[in-house]
């Protein structure tokens, strides 16, 4: 049983989705309980997975041939079902299972076209976990694309008033990113051969083989010796840039971020949660798993660029959050700002920075899930998220106000919550980069700290406007609509609050998992990146 834990995680929701097809559409309760059962089952599997996980390299590996096609003189086309977890994916898989469970509970009140909703949710579930564990580029790409479609329909059918615009924008943006990734994937496929297959040229999608420059076929397009240049960059730099842009759209990075606020504002609450907590992480994950290790030379070449884009995201996202008049939009922009820390940390290529970046992905998953749930609470009651329409909610919703306080303070990086650990590590790592590997200038980390001030400003201003002062409602909201948290909302919010607190006070268990990856990542990118750059 144990070796197949990851497959079990991926295929349980798929099997459930298949089963759901045969359940009559009217049985709303059945779909709910089915989805919940799948999530709870995944939690048990996750516990088993964590119990058998030991800090270190890749484990729980499953490797099976998937597609093998002999192409005659063109070699052999081979893709594998190759999954495993390491320090990068383990925290994200754990986060996914946890957040998916909460999103399933948050979906409880979805009764409109429940069959379609839950089938899509289950497919999304499988695709998210699949993309975090896939180690074969084609398999990753498959899961990556499979995430896109359910999310598109979930926003387009169950979303808010401008859902069509938002869903199409989301779809087109992400599709553009996918195409950029696809181009590089093909380029890599024809440039890399499988060293373990003796005789004959066997191309491979294996991400681990791709990261080793000795597996590159000489005179292939992505061979470091290739003299082909387009404009100022060579092929490998272009390839990195395309991958980077593809993942940066997903992250999202300024200025490729404008799909995010629209998608969040229109998406139903559980989908906002999944989008912010998990789907954005694929961007950072892709950078750390694919773009930077496979093209370490280009990663070093572009590190300042990546970090500057991260800092711009932090500052620009914060400013935009300050100007937002819609609560969900504000939170969406704060996500843009927080994901900027991931870019900054990864670009630093220091143990602190990379640990901080991965920790930020993990922590932001918890905190942003909580933020969007909190925004959903008020939207469920009034169908209005305009900040200016509320005032003095603390007198009518004390428990809700307490939860909002926790979520906002966690997000603005108050020590004691997980976000602080992540951000301080990113700051230390980015600042240290100048003196250890010389990649980033110190000023980048210093400018990034201003995000802390802006974060405090927009969150506390929102608290002041919506929750403090005399109780008052505008925009036709009735005071009777304002009721405090229900039990189900407590069930969703309290675990997230406790998790944010626990991982802020005691980060070691997660860092123990991340750190081997971060160390190995830094060493790989720095040594290989420097050795590969022998340009003619």
């Amino acid at each position: 049983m144990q070796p197949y834990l990851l497959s079990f995680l991926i295929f349980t929701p798929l099997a459930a989705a298949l089963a759901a097809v045969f359940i009559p559409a009217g049985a709303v309760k059945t779909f709910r309980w089915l989805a919940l059962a799948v999530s709870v089952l995944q939690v048990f599997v996750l516990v088993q997975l964590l119990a058998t996980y030991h800090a270190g390299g890749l484990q729980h590996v499953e490797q099976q041939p998937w597609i093998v096609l002999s192409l005659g003189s063109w070699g052999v086309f081979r893709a594998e079902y190759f999954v495993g977890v390491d320090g990068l994916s383990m925290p994200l898989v754990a986060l996914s299972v946890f957040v998916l469970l909460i999103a399933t509970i948050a979906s409880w009140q979805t009764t409109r076209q429940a069959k379609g909703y839950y089938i899509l949710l289950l497919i999304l579930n499988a695709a998210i976990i699949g993309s975090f564990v896939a180690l074969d580029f084609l398999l990753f790409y498959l899961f990556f694309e499979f995430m896109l479609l359910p999310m598109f329909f979930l926003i387009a059918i169950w979303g808010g008033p401008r859902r069509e615009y938002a869903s199409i924008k989301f779809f087109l943006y992400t599709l553009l990113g996918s195409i950029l990734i696809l181009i590089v994937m093909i380029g890599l496929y024809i440039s890399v051969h499988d060293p373990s297959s003796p005789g004959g040229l066997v191309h491979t999608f294996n991400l681990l083989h791709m990261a080793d420059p000795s597996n590159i076929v000489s005179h292939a397009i992505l061979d470091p010796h290739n003299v082909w240049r387009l404009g100022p960059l060579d092929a490998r730099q272009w390839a990195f840039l395309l991958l980077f842009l593809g993942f940066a759209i997903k992250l999202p990075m300024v200025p490729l971020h404008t799909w995010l606020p629209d998608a969040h504002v229109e998406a139903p609450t559980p989908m906002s949660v999944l989008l912010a907590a998990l789907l954005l992480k694929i961007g950072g994950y892709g950078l750390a798993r694919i773009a930077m290790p496979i093209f370490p030379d280009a990663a070093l070449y572009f590190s300042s660029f990546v970090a500057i884009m991260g800092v711009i995201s932090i500052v620009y996202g914060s400013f935009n959050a300050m100007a937002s008049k819609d609560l969900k939009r504000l939170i969406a922009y704060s996500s843009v700002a927080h994901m900027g820390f991931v870019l900054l940390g990864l670009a630093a290529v220091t143990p602190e920075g990379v640990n901080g970046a991965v920790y930020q992905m993990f922590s932001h998953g918890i905190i942003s899930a909580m933020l969007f749930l909190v925004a959903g609470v008020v939207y469920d009651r009034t169908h209005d998220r305009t900040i200016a329409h509320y005032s003095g909610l603390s007198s009518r919703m004390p428990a809700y106000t307490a939860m909002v306080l926790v979520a906002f303070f966690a997000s603005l990086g108050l020590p004691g919550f997980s976000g602080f650990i992540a951000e301080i590590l990113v700051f230390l790592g980015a600042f240290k980069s100048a003196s250890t590997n010389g990649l980033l200038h110190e000023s980048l980390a210093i400018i990034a700290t201003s995000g802390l001030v802006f974060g405090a400003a927009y969150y506390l201003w929102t608290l002041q406007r919506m929750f403090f002062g005399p109780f008052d409602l505008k925009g036709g909201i009735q005071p009777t609509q304002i009721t405090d948290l229900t039990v189900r909302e407590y069930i969703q919010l309290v675990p997230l609050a406790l998790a944010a607190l626990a991982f802020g006070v005691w980060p070691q268990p997660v860092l123990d998992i991340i750190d081997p990856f971060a160390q190995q990542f830094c060493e790989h990118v720095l040594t290989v990146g420097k050795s590969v750059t022998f340009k003619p």
Partner: protein
Amino acid sequence: MSKEVIINNPDTLADSEYFLGCLLLVVGLPLLSALLCRLFPARRQNVITTLSSLLLLTGLAAAANMLRMVYDTHVVLKFPWFHLGDLSFSTGFFVDRTSALMAVLVLFVSFLVHIYSTRYMKDDGALSRYYAMLGFFTFSMLGIVLTIDLLTMFVFWELVGFSSYMLIGHWQHLPSAATAARKAFVMNRIGDVGFIVGLMIYWVQSGSFDIYLLTFIDGNNPEFISDYSQGLQTAGALCLFCGVIGKSAQFPLFTWLPDAMEGPTPVSALIHAATMVAAGVFMLVRLHALFTPASLDVVALTGVVTALLAALAALAQTDLKKILAYSTISQLGFMVMAVGAGAPDAAYLHLFTHAFFKACLFLCAGSVIHALHEAQHGTHAHFDVQDVRNLGGLRHKLPFTFAAFVVSGAALAGLPFFSGFLSKDAILTALLYWKGETFSWRWLVFGGAFLVSFLTALYTFRLIAKVFLGEERETTSLTVHEPSWHMRGPIALLALGSFWFFVSWNPLNYHGWLYQPAKADENFHSALLVFISGAWVLIAGAVAYYIFRQPRTAHVPLLLNSFYIDKLYTQTVATRTYALALLTEKIDRRWIDGFLHYVAYGQVTLAHLTGWFDRVIIDGTVNALAALVRTVGSFTRSFQGGKIQLYIFWSVLAIIIFLIWTLF
């Protein structure tokens, strides 16, 4: 988690379970109080107030015991917090006389505030939150005081900011309270960003945040400081000082403290005496060894500017609590100045004495406000009880409060026989030596300090005169009662602490158990400076009496608005920032999304064009070809109509054409 204990004293105090128990009680009880208070609903107020006060009292006893044990030694306890590979982030305790005494002070003031609040906050709807935050505030401050690690200090530093946010904004229905709370937190955050940059610099330079290692090895740190460049050391120290500027309300970030008056008055006492603004000065004292001469000059200048501006502003305020707030800022500037002059011990002494008399002043002010509010209750009088222009002559109605206010006010003004005189004297002496023999800008700082002490006497006298002396104004018709013992007890204790004997037995000499300066020349000091500063304050008192004996109100807008610095922030910086935020939103909407929409429109237009091309050109060509073929076909088909006459006609026609062709 394994415990890594470093024992720096042969008595193995760090191994003593008794000592560790005390330490645990000191840190744990306020936190426990915070957690327990949250469990009870606000209507169980007796349970909440009694329980939390008892917990704090126990904590105070433990702290006093701890102080006794570490009085001549120090204990370093280090625990790993988290680590990345071999980079470790540890935490732990560094208990020496400085920190243990501070812990006693914090718990003492906090305990008194707990007692005082039982009446002041009686029947408050959110009493459990209030008491929980008081406990948490105390806990956070103790964290700053007792920690050994800069990063841990930063953690608690921010938690202090959070607690003050909650307490300043305690009355959530008041918009002004919410504004003040936000302002306090954001201003503190600005300073904290500097602190973080300082952390980065020390991390890169030394790979350690251990305060003990960074500062304590007899001033010269072979291991850590030696390979610092002087510039980086200065930069690091100044970045840490940014945190102090925010937390201790120094120029230019001091504007949050006067606004923080929106919180309940006992909270103000706590903030001003022990738990919040004291943190900055304490940190300066603690990390003094990290400061280079250049950075100390900046510290001294900041201190004198703050002290002067705030003292001037205090002269013109009309709000009872705001006068006290500006006085706190001014006194903090005084302490910071002392640190800048290389006399952290003198600053610490002043921090200690200031805690007593300032807490006392605030609690007295709270008594006045509370008593007048109660007196107003049920009458038609609804004047602002905090506005000193409405007050006067209260010495008859509130004799106890008056007495305590005069005692603590005298300490603030620095009259002989009061604690403030001694600590102020210590600072002035330090400045005297620091300024040097030849004239330099340091003489101006020294002169500024003297001016501040003059102004302090002036505004203190004005405050007492406005509130307690002269004729009663709006309060004439009210029946005012002194508050109950819950509020008078703490005031009495603090007033007692404002006398000289807490510092030293000799009322004119600051040498005592708290302060043993290394370099101050005793003879010179006692002969000259005591005389001068004593006379100086008396002159100030005379001037104040001359100015303020009539009940007139000088209206100086510049001072009332504290040099318009706050206006500058709210009207310039804040609005500009918001304008910038709106600009980014516009960029998003108009440029980025606008660009996308144009691309989309372009795409759709192109699609229409290609559609038109398909329809008109390609399909048109195909259709035209088809039509041509059809025309030709139908034309040729018409040859084969199936009628014999037609065939004959075509045959004849063909023959005729053929004949014409061949014959001509």
